């Protein structure tokens, strides 16, 4: 028989305001095995933990139940406290009477009744707990960063500077990401390339960093400290070792009609290309869909003009397999498709563009060489209208429910830059709210209004109406004046909502990292563990976790690096002892468990068994504790009931069911 102590936490008033905690403690004493029960204001505090330790020692407790917040919050805390007092940490169970009880119920009697039942279930379970010993696993001292934008580059640099090997896998032919597409950055108006390019060069030159561009993660297996990853290096059709980056092939390539991804399709590029002049690596790729040689077999001009002999039409995709201790996701974002927002006439007029497209228009390396002009006729615009919140803050399924966070600031930036360079151009911004929390952000926005005379109108636009003469009629609200406005414009710029890179879903599935309804990766704790995924060993950097501007992204990238370094610095990791165990007397050797195990943790061995005095050799299941992650799939699949899961055994769960239904 266990000797169980029950500790009921008030959590200040978080629990005690709705649950009669002393009543819960009192009722606990009536449960089988319970020899001690008390309540205290903050069980997780040092004094609270001391009470637990004292009770363990004085009353000789063999198991404890803490009625408190979610085990996801403080299970580890209480396990450690128990361990310090000499109790096996796995003899601790938590009854979640905060998140699952006091916070969601209002009636004290009802909440107290429920808390008592949750306590009973935990006591029933702990009565059947057995001491468990955590094993150890090794840590591969190498990190993988998925995505080579500013987030990925920063994370990789920080990890590499701490002395660990890092690989960056980037899908496109160059690192640099969205930031490389930007012209200037807020709130200081630095040139984006001027601050990004040095970092790109540093990353490529760093002896600890290996960059795989034009590559994608194909398969991930293993677990924290010991991931095995397959990376597909897509065929570049150019030998990276031979290419000198002279650029002659791109100049001579006769196929120049492919839309330029880097310039958001506003102009075209050659079939053999580097996305932009400062690309790293400065080695082009052949877009086989656009290449005449690949389409018709004739051409081969690039091969003829390449003095280094680097063109290789026969190159094939290559799969490399590498081991990593930690993985950082930095997959970034894209703007949403505006198909469903054609009231803004994006698909009806070339002069309606997204803000990211405007970045390219404003950039010296962009389609208009940095001249502000209408894409339809090349004329200089006199009136420009910006529309905010296009697809952001939408409750319907057309857009996104969240605020994209960066639009208010980049629109102020665009407005300011335009007014600065072209003082005769009028700029109007239709906004719903101007949101500028951040250091020097509101000051920046106010400068756009006060110093640059940007006309901000509070109200959304209902429709953009292309006129026969090529102008755009903007029909919007002015809520402060309470009137409907019709404004003629030469260009309309849409602050288009951002969304996580669509590939992130596939990657999250491979990593078994959870993802929210907007496809942002979920953090382990919204406040206290913001750069970690709930899946151990997976870290989050940049917009893949939620909308962010550059300074926030860089800060988070550094934080993710620190978490990864913290993991890589360890030589051994404690493994989860809640693994499956086969009862070899019951096992009939059917292999069902082996087939459902996602980790290949179950093998079959011939073992000698003593079945009621009959000694014989049988083929039975054996679980490799280092590989087993404790999901329990095998326990239910096993037809003979030989498999059970430590810490979540059949008997324990049935005891909980019984306690709840009592």
């Amino acid at each position, binding site marked *: 028989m266990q000797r169980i102590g029950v500790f009921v936490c008030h959590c200040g008033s978080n629990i005690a305001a709705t649950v009669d905690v002393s009543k819960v403690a009192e009722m606990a004493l009536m449960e089988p095995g319970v020899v001690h029960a008390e309540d205290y204001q903050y069980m997780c505090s040092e004094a609270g933990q001391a009470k637990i330790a004292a009770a363990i020692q004085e009353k000789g407790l063999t198991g404890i139940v803490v009625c408190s917040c979610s085990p996801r919050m403080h299970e580890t805390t209480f396990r450690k406290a128990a361990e310090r007092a000499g109790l096996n940490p796995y003899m601790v169970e938590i009854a979640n009477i905060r998140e699952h009880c006091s916070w969601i119920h209002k009636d004290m009697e009802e909440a107290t009744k429920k808390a008592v039942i949750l306590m009973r279930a935990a006591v029933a379970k702990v009565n059947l707990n057995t001491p468990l010993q955590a094993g150890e696993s090794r840590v591969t001292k190498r990190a993988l960063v998925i995505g080579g934008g500013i987030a990925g580059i920063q994370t990789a640099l920080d990890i590499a500077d701490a002395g660990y090997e890092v690989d960056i896998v980037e899908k496109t032919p160059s690192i640099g990401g969205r930031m490389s597409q930007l012209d200037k950055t807020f709130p200081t108006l630095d040139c984006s390339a001027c601050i990004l390019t040095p970092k790109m060069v540093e990353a490529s030159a760093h002896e600890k960093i290996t960059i795989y561009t034009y590559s994608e993660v194909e398969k991930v297996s293993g677990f924290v400290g010991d991931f095995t990853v397959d990376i597909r290096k897509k065929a570049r059709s150019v030998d990276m070792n031979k290419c000198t980056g002279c650029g002659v092939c791109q100049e001579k390539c006769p196929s120049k009609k492919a839309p330029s991804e880097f310039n958001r399709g506003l102009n075209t590029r050659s079939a053999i290309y580097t996305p932009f002049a400062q690309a790293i690596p400065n080695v082009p790729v052949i877009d086989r869909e656009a290449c005449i040689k690949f389409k018709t077999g004739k051409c081969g001009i690039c091969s003829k003009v390449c003095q280094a002999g680097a063109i290789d039409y026969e190159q094939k995709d290559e799969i490399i397999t590498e081991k990593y201790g930690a993985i950082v996701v930095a997959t970034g974002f894209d703007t949403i498709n505006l198909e469903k927002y054609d*009231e803004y006439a994006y698909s009806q007029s070339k002069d309606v563009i997204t803000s990211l497209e405007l970045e390219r228009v404003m950039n010296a390396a962009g389609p208009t060489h940095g001249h502000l002009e209408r894409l339809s006729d090349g004329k200089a615009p006199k009136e420009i209208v910006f529309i905010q919140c296009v697809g952001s*803050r939408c*409750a319907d399924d057309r857009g996104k429910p969240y605020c994209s966070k960066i639009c208010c600031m980049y629109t102020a930036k665009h407005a300011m830059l335009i007014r600065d360079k072209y003082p005769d151009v009028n700029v109007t911004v239709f906004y*719903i709210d101007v949101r500028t929390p951040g250091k020097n952000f509101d000051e920046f926005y106010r400068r756009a209004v006060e110093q640059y005379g940007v006309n901000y109108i*509070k*109200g959304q636009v*209902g429709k953009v109406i292309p006129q026969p003469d090529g102008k755009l009629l903007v029909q*919007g*609200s002015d809520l402060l004046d309470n009137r409907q406005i019709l404004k003629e414009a030469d260009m309309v710029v849409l602050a288009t909502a951002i969304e996580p890179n669509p590939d992130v879903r596939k990657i999250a599935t491979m990593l078994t990292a959870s993802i929210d309804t907007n496809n942002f990766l979920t953090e382990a704790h919204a406040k206290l563990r913001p750069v970690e995924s709930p899946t151990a060993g997976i870290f989050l950097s940049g917009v893949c976790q939620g909308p962010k501007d550059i300074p926030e992204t860089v800060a988070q990238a550094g934080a993710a690096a620190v978490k990864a370094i913290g993991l890589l610095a360890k030589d051994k990791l404690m493994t989860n002892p809640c693994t499956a165990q086969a009862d070899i007397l019951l096992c009939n050797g059917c292999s069902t468990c082996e087939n459902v195990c996602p980790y290949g943790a179950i093998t079959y061995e011939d073992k000698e068994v003593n079945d009621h005095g009959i000694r014989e050799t049988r083929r039975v299941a054996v679980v490799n504790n280092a590989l087993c992650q404790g999901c329990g799939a095998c326990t239910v699949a096993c037809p003979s009931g030989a498999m059970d899961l430590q810490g979540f055994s059949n008997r324990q769960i049935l005891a909980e069911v019984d306690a709840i239904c009592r």
Partner: protein
Amino acid sequence: MSSEKKQAEMIKEISGVNPLKCMKCGKCSATCPSYNEMDIKPHQFVSYVINEDIESLVDSKSLWKCLSCFACVERCPRDVKPGKLIDAARQVVVRQRSQDYLKADEIPELLDPELPQQLLVSAFRRYRR
């Protein structure tokens, strides 16, 4: 419950609209083709229901200027559907006060030989009980 509160509840129930979802972006008013004819503008309509100022609403000429063209319903980013609220207010008027906006004896002079039946039927539905 005050009668205005009751009427506000009724408008919410008939329309099936939760006016609290409104974020006051003004896209409905930016969209509305009858905007200039309305005394209470579409986005204000939502606030009036929230504030239970129903007297002003039922006296508003906006009720009879709304075309039920559903442009605001289509474009509202918050799924508030001001057009449905306006129709519900219209229903409250024609049902409860038996104050039809279209009187039977004024109809003959409104007719012309080209006028399609559809027009008369539609106007009857929107303006009368």
